[in-house]
């Protein structure tokens, strides 16, 4: 056997073959360092340059599913669509309840809010320069409601008379659906029932118009899958127009010169980055690559909170985190048992020590709105009552409760909450046999849909600021109900509320309905959401909003005075 070893008497010979190892390694490291230094010799960061060029750079969660308003349902997708399109009514930069005129200059309802007339501005234009007319809106509503379109969120338009029947294919003639163009500049919406909050509803992405000529140049009206959404083809009517879309890399929108209010638009463009990992996003923010993050890793919240002039933003969000109970399966089929579970959760412990994002412990289901609806109920930790309900449910102590499972979709955050609740139920009620089962997202959804669970984790983000968007889904047969719960009382109260046009009386009726929900507890509310994110100080006119639907038209970028956080 040959062993090569260093021959100290002739260092030149045997040590030479050994050189390339560290030599090449060192060389490559030097090259690496030189290359790196060369690229790092930039004076300004991306966000600084972008602020100068007035391009807002923002993290936007996941890759958009589509840029067609009739095909999307996620929050991130809606963010992009708000830059590309404008609805009849637009979002106000500072308030969730004030309505900002969009394509409609003004609007008016009849006496009982069941018919709305929108008066469209004459100078509204598509990004190709063509005028936006009332007919475009009729075409768009026809498209999203068309059964063959199978738009996932078509039900948002069921407010329109006969829309549901048309969408289900029970009605063939779209002329019978309650939307009509009177000339080019007046749109009349006739509703199934009074809706005093209708202007809030039409702000939603599903009510955005699409350009008929563009859609039909690339296919027929109901095509789900054509090239019209691509840069170069895409036509919108918003303050910005699509300029680039690269999957998993970015969506870029730039100033739309044809926009009717182009002079008021402050930014030259917005770049949306689909960064799914919260950790990557936080680093990108620290690195000066984005002005704004979509979310924030929970374990870094505390550190950011302690910072001076922290870029951390924690804002109330229009969402509710809760557990569904399957009322068709033991042991959660017993209302007293569900009450015991709900009263044995210390919600403040969960928001303070588990989620840590400034969430509000939920004492009802619908998140309270400052100017409007307040949910009834004072759900909270009450061990005496919880014990009593447990006994009434037929269990002398928690040990007798048959084994059941908390079903969650795979996520560290959901698991931590479930473990905390499992522990509270064990300690507070003595229920020892509780399993936590996690399933991958789509499997989880199927299990919930099939009703093959006892308790399952859930979350709901409101589509508009009105309790209807939270309470509507618990009526019998709603496709989001999934608990098996059905209450004639609740259904009646919800129906009655829908006929009331006076906001105060309507809220009172809805609160009565919610009281029924909170008494029977097919769902156990846990907390109300917050939006936790990082915001660069250069970003102007960015105000806390319950719906988090920012109108990019009003956002501005201006370098902050030096000395602030980077």
């Amino acid at each position: 056997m040959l062993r090569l070893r260093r021959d100290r008497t002739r260092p030149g010979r045997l040590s030479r073959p050994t050189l390339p190892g560290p030599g090449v390694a060192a060389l490559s490291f030097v090259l690496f360092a030189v290359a790196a230094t060369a690229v790092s010799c930039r004076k300004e960061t991306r966000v600084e340059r972008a602020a100068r060029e007035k391009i807002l750079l923002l993290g936007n969660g996941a890759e958009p599913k589509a840029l067609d308003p009739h095909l999307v349902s996620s929050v991130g997708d809606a963010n992009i669509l708000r830059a590309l399109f404008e609805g009849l009514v637009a979002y106000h930069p500072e308030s969730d309840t004030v309505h900002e005129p969009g394509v409609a200059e003004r609007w008016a309802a009849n006496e009982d809010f069941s018919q709305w007339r929108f008066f469209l501005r004459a100078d509204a234009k598509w990004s190709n320069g063509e005028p936006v007319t009332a007919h475009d809106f009729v075409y768009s509503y026809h498209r999203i409601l068309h059964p063959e379109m199978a738009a996932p969120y078509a039900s948002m338009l069921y407010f329109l008379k006969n829309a549901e029947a048309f969408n289900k294919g029970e009605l063939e003639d779209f002329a019978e659906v309650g939307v009509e163009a009177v000339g080019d500049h007046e749109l009349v919406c006739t509703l199934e029932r009074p809706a005093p909050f209708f202007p809030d509803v039409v702000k939603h992405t599903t009510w955005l118009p699409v350009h008929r000529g563009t859609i039909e140049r690339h296919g027929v009206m109901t095509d789900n899958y054509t090239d019209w959404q691509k840069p170069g083809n895409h036509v919108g009517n918003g303050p910005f127009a699509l300029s680039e879309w690269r999957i998993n890399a970015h969506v870029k929108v730039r100033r739309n010169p044809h926009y009717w209010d182009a002079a008021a638009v402050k930014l030259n463009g917005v770049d949306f980055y689909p960064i799914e990992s919260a950790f990557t996003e936080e680093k990108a923010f620290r690195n000066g690559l984005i002005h704004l993050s979509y979310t924030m890793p929970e374990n870094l919240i505390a550190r950011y909170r302690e910072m001076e002039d922290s870029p951390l933003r924690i804002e109330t969000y229009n969402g509710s985190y809760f557990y569904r109970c399957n009322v068709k399966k033991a042991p959660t089929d017993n209302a007293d048992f569900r009450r015991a579970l709900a009263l044995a959760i210390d919600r403040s412990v969960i928001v303070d020590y588990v989620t840590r994002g400034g969430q509000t412990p939920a004492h009802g289901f619908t998140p309270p709105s400052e100017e409007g609806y307040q949910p009834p109920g004072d759900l909270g930790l009450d061990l005496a009552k919880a014990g009593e309900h447990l006994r009434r449910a037929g269990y002398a102590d928690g040990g007798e409760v048959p084994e059941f499972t908390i079903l969650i979709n795979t996520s560290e955050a959901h698991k931590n909450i479930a473990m905390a609740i499992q522990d509270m139920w064990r300690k507070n009620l003595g229920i020892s046999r509780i399993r936590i089962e996690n399933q991958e997202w789509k499997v989880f959804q199927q299990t919930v849909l099939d009703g093959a669970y006892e308790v399952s984790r859930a979350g709901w983000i409101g589509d508009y600021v009105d309790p209807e968007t939270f309470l509507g889904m618990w009526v019998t047969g709603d496709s989001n109900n999934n608990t098996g719960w059905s209450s004639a009382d609740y259904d009646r109260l919800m129906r009655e509320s829908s006929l009331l046009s006076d906001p105060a009386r309507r809220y009172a009726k809805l609160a009565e309905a919610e009281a029924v929900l909170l008494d029977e507890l097919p769902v156990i509310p846990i907390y109300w959401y917050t939006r936790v994110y990082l915001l660069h100080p250069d970003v102007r006119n960015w105000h806390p909003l319950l719906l988090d639907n920012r109108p990019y038209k009003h956002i501005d970028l201006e370098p902050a005075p030096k000395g602030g956080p980077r």
Partner: protein
Amino acid sequence: MDTARFLLSRLAQSLFALFCIVTITFFLARLAPGGPFLDEKAVPEHLVEQMKRNYGFDQPLPRQYLLYLGRLVRGDLGPSLGNKGFSVNEVIAESFPVSLALGLCGLVLALVLGIPAGVFAAARRNTRVDYALMGFAMVGICLPTFVIAPLLGEFFALRLGWFDVALWEGSTAWILGAVTLGLYYSAYIARLTRGSMLDVLSQDFVRTAKAKGARPLRILFVHAFRGGVAPVVAFLGPALAGLIGGSFVVESVFGLPGLGQHFIKAASNRDYWLINGTVTVFAVLILAMNFLVDVLQAWLDPRSRAAK
């Protein structure tokens, strides 16, 4: 058996393997619970039915399978369900070059670091140098990329400011991605090289060469090297395929729009056509690489041909 026949039979084997992979993937994807049209906010039943009709999922499965095969033969991988408006071909065409650049750079780095380290360690077997190098390599193998990648990002991007920490366009984050992959694979290659170099160095012809007075450098790089790197060449095929298709973690940490992300997301979205498409592309890649490696090895070492 002559070379041409050997290659032909390997080609036939590869095609058969590809057919099996395509078929199994198609049916496995459909067996998974849940479906592409489930959403957090439930989609009404009548719309789900219509969506299935729009995409042909209402047809009997065997028929869908045959239609799929027909399209596949024509090179059409179908529409992506999770990226509406994009075909699977477009999705892959956009992401593949990113992964290829990342993978090739990573591979070059892995070879440049790994082979000399392995040769060096073998030449200095059981010395401190050997232990140090192999210790590093062991650490490299044991540390998963999801640990190395954030550390590199934290240090070289955020601390030193040499690179960007994320994003693709106009960003230097991909270099860190390539380095992460390169370091990881260089550790394997170093160990592999060391082992096979030791084997070769212990053979008679090396002793003969030494006895005849050949210089050690010549022995290492002329006599032993060709045989010593043969296993590395065999490893290159799967390594490159793995680098290109399996860089999900690196892509996710550095926010790069590569193929790896689609692998994971397609599966979790139940984006059936994208699942089939990415798996097919990956399979073709591995089979092609293995085929190439076979050819290369047949050329490097005639015995492997004769053995067939």
